């Protein structure tokens, strides 16, 4: 087993979501149910992340003992979130069928943004970091056929891919690559 992300650091990602839930406009029962589900899911999420990131390192990287690039690492967070969240109590109360997917998108983008901040030697990401700070995260392209936000399409993709057991770290990492590329391009305009 290779060294893994410190469990305390890992859990902080989900603690932030629990804080967001706490400050949300959800009714009390749903807020409590979701916070409880997130808290109970942490061990499954961590276990899943360790397995998926190690699988990605072993199978997708040329240098297997080296570093997993930030897009695959962030994708591993997303897949482990989609598979590991136990939304048992919350599912009985929420009307949002894509809540799991919305949480996974937040997790993936948060991991990616954290990497970009940390990977700023010689200020090479300074423009992108400033752009992300200004927008409180990543921008998505507008859709073409309707006015549905792009994030909804992404959530739909994740929803059906999980349902059909087709989640792929490689596919998600490529999508995250393009999201970063799109934002980098916008930041340079």
């Amino acid at each position: 087993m290779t060294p893994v992300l410190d469990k305390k650091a890992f859990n902080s990602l989900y603690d932030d979501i629990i804080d967001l839930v706490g400050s949300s406009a959800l009714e009390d029962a749903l807020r409590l149910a979701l916070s409880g589900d997130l808290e109970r899911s942490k061990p499954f999420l961590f276990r899943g992340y360790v397995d998926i990131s190690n699988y990605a390192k072993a199978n997708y990287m040329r240098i297997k003992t080296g570093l997993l690039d930030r897009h695959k690492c962030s994708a591993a967070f997303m897949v482990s979130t989609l598979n590991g969240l136990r939304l048992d109590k919350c599912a009985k109360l929420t009307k949002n069928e894509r809540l799991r997917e919305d949480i996974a998108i937040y997790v993936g983008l948060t991991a990616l943004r954290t990497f970009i901040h940390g990977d700023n030697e010689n200020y090479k990401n300074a423009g992108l970091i400033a752009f992300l700070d200004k927008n409180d995260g990543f921008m998505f392209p507008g859709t073409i056929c309707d006015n549905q936000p792009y994030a909804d399409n992404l959530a739909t993709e994740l929803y059906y891919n999980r349902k059909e057991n087709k989640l792929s770290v490689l596919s998600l990492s490529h999508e995250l690559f393009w999201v970063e590329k799109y934002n980098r391009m916008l930041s340079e305009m």
Partner: protein
Amino acid sequence: MNSVPTEKASESCSECLLRDAFSKEASDGDVTFSNSDVYLNTIVENNGGRFIPSNPNLLLNALR
């Protein structure tokens, strides 16, 4: 997950500094192994033990 052919590291991978960080740590002498998780630990630690939240409004909208 189905097994897929091993691919070469992508361009995006070689662009990022994760590998550079690995080289630097390896050359320090006191660190013999590193990976992205160890590197991410450092980033999170430098940020007061937290990740940098992205698009919290997307999630807050989902929580309405």
